[in-house]
């Protein structure tokens, strides 16, 4: 019986968290139009989440592309069709790997930073102080961070994909000697504009999801050292799970 009750209890807690998150998202949505007018803090957050993530995104993109080049070349030579390497890497990167890997890296690099920062602000009573001074912390602190993440994410996806393509080209063309003309021309003839659109749309959706989870977990963290640590961990775990579930739903919708 106790096990059943605990299960029920944890299920109710889960429902409560989903409800709170939805309410938090609605609150953010309502103040977004006004928040967009205050450009200065958004720029700062695009710098924090986007520009500071550039190095890790580009490094990982390069290696993801290189490994796609290796695996793709090995697989395609078995069918004697290595000139399709460009097509295979471009489509898999644009549709899946680009947005998903970028979102996971984004959650690890930028999401944790956001959650830890907000959690520490909560723990050191900075948020309470703002409320006392009649400054709305949602507008002042949470919203610019959320918007910065949403703006930065699709751009990061695009950079990731392009760097990865050059990584694949490096391995396929420079190391293995796939003809560079057929690598690019096969890619060009079979990649549709809708593939690019799908990738960027996924980037936007994942950006919204990951930023929302990060700011929510940070903002509602327990004001203790342990609470901040737990908020950071939860950010990464929940972002990763939500990204992968959303990825399946979006792919099923757009195929």
């Amino acid at each position, binding site marked *: 019986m106790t096990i059943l009750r605990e299960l029920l209890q944890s299920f109710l807690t889960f429902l409560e968290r989903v409800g709170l998150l939805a309410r938090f998202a609605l609150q953010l949505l309502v103040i977004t139009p006004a928040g967009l007018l205050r450009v200065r803090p958004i720029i700062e957050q695009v*710098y924090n989440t986007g*520009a500071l993530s550039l190095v890790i995104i580009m490094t990982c993109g390069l290696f993801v592309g290189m490994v796609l080049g290796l695996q793709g070349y090995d697989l395609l030579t078995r069918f004697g069709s290595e000139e399709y390497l460009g097509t295979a890497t471009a489509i898999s990167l644009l549709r899946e790997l680009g947005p998903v890997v970028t979102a996971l890296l984004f959650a690890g690099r930028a999401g944790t930073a956001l959650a830890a920062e907000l959690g520490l602000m909560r723990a050191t009573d900075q948020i309470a102080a703002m409320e006392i001074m009649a400054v709305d912390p949602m507008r002042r602190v949470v919203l610019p961070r959320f918007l910065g993440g949403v703006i930065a994410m699709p751009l*990061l996806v*695009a950079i990731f994909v392009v760097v990865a393509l050059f990584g694949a080209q490096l391995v396929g063309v420079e190391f293995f000697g796939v003809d560079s003309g057929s690598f690019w021309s096969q890619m060009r003839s079979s990649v549709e*504009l809708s593939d*690019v659109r799908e990738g960027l749309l996924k980037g936007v959706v994942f950006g919204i999801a990951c930023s929302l989870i990060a700011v929510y977990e940070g903002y509602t963290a327990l004001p203790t050292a342990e609470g901040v640590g737990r908020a950071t961990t939860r950010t990464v775990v929940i972002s990763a799970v939500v990204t992968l579930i959303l990825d399946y739903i979006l792919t099923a919708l757009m195929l």
Partner: protein
Amino acid sequence: MRSTRTIDISTGLFVLLGFAAILFMVTQITNREFSLTSDSYRLKALFENIGGLKPGAPVSMAGVTVGRIEDISYDMNLLKAVVTLRIDGRYNAIPNDSDASIFTAGLLGGQYVALTPGGSEEAFKNGDQVEFVQDAVVLENLISKYLFDSAAKKSGAAAAPAPAPAAQE
């Protein structure tokens, strides 16, 4: 906190890089060399069998893409497939007795419609029908025909004096 100028410059660099990447994706790795202009016109062609032809497949003349397949439907009265070709307005002097054939690009490639110009003085107009068509070649039909023919030849050789079985079709 770093100075605002540094932040601005790196943010600008990041945003520029992002948009450059998007531009690269849109122009360099997608199929954009052919987009229909607004003054394109439509032709219809009736086929007995279109094989694996799909909407969006290219229409080419002498290997140059001049249009796309816009729509494929089945006409219940004529019992034929109706293929709507959308031809770019630049190619407005295609003789109206040209013929349309369905070919396959390469071994694994998709199918496309090739227009071969005829000798007529008049050009196709919007809504015209292509009179001369050649259906898609279905590989299974070819193979079964080949097998059937060779089997018929063998049995014909065995029964030498007897009249060969009537040729098919």
